[in-house]
């Protein structure tokens, strides 16, 4: 269902969408059946002259069966959904493949700062590239992100990745993703963080290895300013808010 609206751009996005599809089918069938029976009963047993209602207490086993069998069936389907859901959850949040590169994501009121590993591929070295509101990654690479907040709760959400993680001040929270499609996509803040909550959009740029290399060299050599003009985080936001392109 999300795939009707949002493309799948990470390795686990199809898993999430398939889980949602499974739930949709199961829940959809039950929903339609319940509503259909419900409306049919309203129509069938509408008040008619001379026809009295029946006295059905629903206490005998025969009568109770009409309710208890569906209710056990619900339990069975719940367990099925549970198994798949836990598997998907585990893949996204608990067990992760080994990282090929790390990246640091820092949220604040009201902008995102990204610390990229730079040409040496190692985070927290001298050649790290810091950007504001633009995250640059390479398609097909497995990234671990370290998520921080400078002030209040924020949340790092990349809908096309089907990825979301709250940023908690005082903590460094780790997650992972592997982009599978190149392009430029939205990053949204998914936890109300004050007046500028809707004013801190960011972009993730997924590039081919060549393109990514080109960006790395340009950024490292200073040809492309690492931080967008203005340096202060708020300025980039304002520029975007005034329609200054994507």
């Amino acid at each position: 269902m999300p795939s009707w609206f949002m493309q799948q751009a990470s390795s686990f996005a199809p898993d999430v969408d398939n889980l949602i599809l499974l739930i949709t089918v199961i829940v959809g069938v039950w929903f339609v059946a319940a509503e259909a029976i419900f409306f049919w009963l309203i129509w069938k047993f509408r008040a008619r002259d001379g026809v009295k209602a029946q006295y059905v207490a629903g206490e005998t086993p025969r009568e109770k069966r009409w309710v208890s069998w569906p209710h056990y069936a619900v339990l069975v389907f719940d367990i099925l959904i549970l198994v798949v859901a836990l598997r998907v959850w585990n893949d996204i949040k608990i067990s992760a493949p080994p990282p090929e590169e790390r990246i640091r994501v820092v949220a604040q009121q009201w902008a995102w700062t990204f610390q990229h590993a730079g040409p040496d591929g190692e985070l927290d070295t001298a050649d790290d590239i810091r950007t504001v509101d633009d995250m640059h990654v390479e398609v097909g690479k497995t990234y671990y992100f370290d998520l921080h907040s400078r002030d209040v709760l924020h949340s790092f959400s990349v809908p096309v990745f089907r990825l979301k993680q709250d940023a908690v001040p005082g903590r460094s929270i780790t997650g992972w993703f592997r982009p599978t499609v190149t392009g430029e996509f939205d990053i949204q803040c998914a936890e109300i963080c004050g007046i500028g909550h809707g004013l801190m959009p960011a972009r993730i740029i997924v590039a081919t290895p060549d393109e990514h290399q080109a960006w790395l060299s340009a950024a490292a050599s200073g040809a492309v300013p690492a931080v967008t003009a203005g340096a202060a985080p708020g300025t980039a936001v304002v520029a975007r808010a005034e329609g200054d392109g994507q």
Partner: protein
Amino acid sequence: MSGHAAAHADHGHHHQSFFQKYLWSTDHKVIGMQYLFTGMLMALIGGFTVYVFRMQLAFPGESVPLWGTVTASDYNSLVTMHGSIMIFWVAMPVLIAAFGNFLIPLMLGCDDMVFPKLNRLSYQIFLISVLVILSSFFVPGGPFGGAWTAYPPLSADPAYNATPWGATLWLVAVALEFVAFLLGGINFVTTAMNSRAPGMKMFDVPIVIWMIVLASLVFMASVGPLIAGAVMLFFDQRLGTGFFDPAAGGDPVLWQHLFWFFGHPEVYVVLLPALGIVAEVMTTFSRKKLFAYKTVVFTAIATSIISFFVWAHHQFVAGIDPRMAGLFTVTTLIISVPIAEMMFVYIATLYGGSIRLTTAMLWALAFIAEFLIGGVTGIFLGAAGADVYFHDTYFVLAHFHYTFFPIAFIGTFAGLSYWFPKMFGRMMNETLGKIHFWGTVIGFNLIFIPLFLTGSGGDHRRIFDYSLFPELEYLQPLRILATVGLLILIAFQPVFIYNFINSMFRGKVAEANPWRANTLEWVAPSPPPHGNFAEMPVVYRGPYEYSVEGRDEDYWPQNVPGDAPGEPAGQSAGQVA
């Protein structure tokens, strides 16, 4: 208790001033009406807030009639006030305190609550909480803008939330509201346990009473940690402590646990009374016994207990241990089982019935149809793997409005249409009622079906303007459609307001039991006098003995003695015992 009522009537109350009779009364019916009218007024305010911010969402940046331009700060305050008001000052007072106060003594066959003065005090504290939250609209910085969930550090530090006065006033108002409901709960529980009419055993009690009592118990058992948390947050806001401040060694996530430990059971606190109302209406207008009454009671109890073990499904991506999240997925999916059972039982009640589609019945049936949508969409959110995508999107919002709106509004309209004759001694207009019904239901669905779609499309919550997100621009027509739905919904509410007020004074005079129902409130006159019953009723059977075989009448009130030998079967031996 029987002789008491007769003596009670001769109290010498006949020369009460308006103030004594309507504002300082200890009579449960008056207190119930006080809660009802206050809740209805707050609904207008809560509705106004959503009108303003949905206009902003549909036409970003444009001036909203009756408000002006909506700034980002306005927006946050409006959504915060909308959620807080609707839950704490509309749903709870109307469903629990209004219907609870009005119905419990009447349905149990007694003359008032056990502690009438405490009852009055609970309303007064509630009223103060109303004044406090309304005052926050007029303070510098405006009302609190940190969402009804009030997560710190945003809510703890005015430097972050820019609503310093509003934040503390919100906290004080919520705390006072909690105290009011804790006090009110004392009456509900003790009256239900100790003041039942002679002959009324536990399983002869109408379902709505069971539900309101259970709701009070769940509220009491769940609100404590949040009261503790509120004290801590207040100290953080005002006294420089750091309970939720990482710099001081505190933990923002602790608040979330304290909040949701209450917040999740809270939704059942409001759901149960609504389900109770729906049961009363459905049985009366299908002339059928409630299917498997005992199952309903046990299922309600099971749901209440399990509701204490699901809270962290609101926090799947909040930074909790992901393995804990797995555990809460299990419990959350488990709770869908008793709720599903409840739905099945209600649907089964229709089987073999003789269904009359009065306005009240339309509302009760709409509750089931709409709540089913809310219920099934919860599965997407309870399954942690799917929630990663849906968390904080409009999908969540649409889900909880498909539960909350049926609970707070559809359930209320069902209850008001049904008990209006008893409350005011007059009948509401059925035609106007049906017009209001269809306009409301159509408008409601027109709001939230588009929002399921925008949520699936990636619209996150609490964003005041989506134009900064290129991937979301194409969803704007759906946002506009949702706002149009809201305008339609709003446009039909004056029909109800007119019907309600006009019928109070000029409706057709109602008899004691216009719906030919079984429960004891219909034995008292419409409206019941102070003291309720001329003679306290005695109960001979359960509340849902409709269409009993071999009887002429298709109903058999609880207070009518069994047929004596020689009497023709089915002759109701007079309504008033």
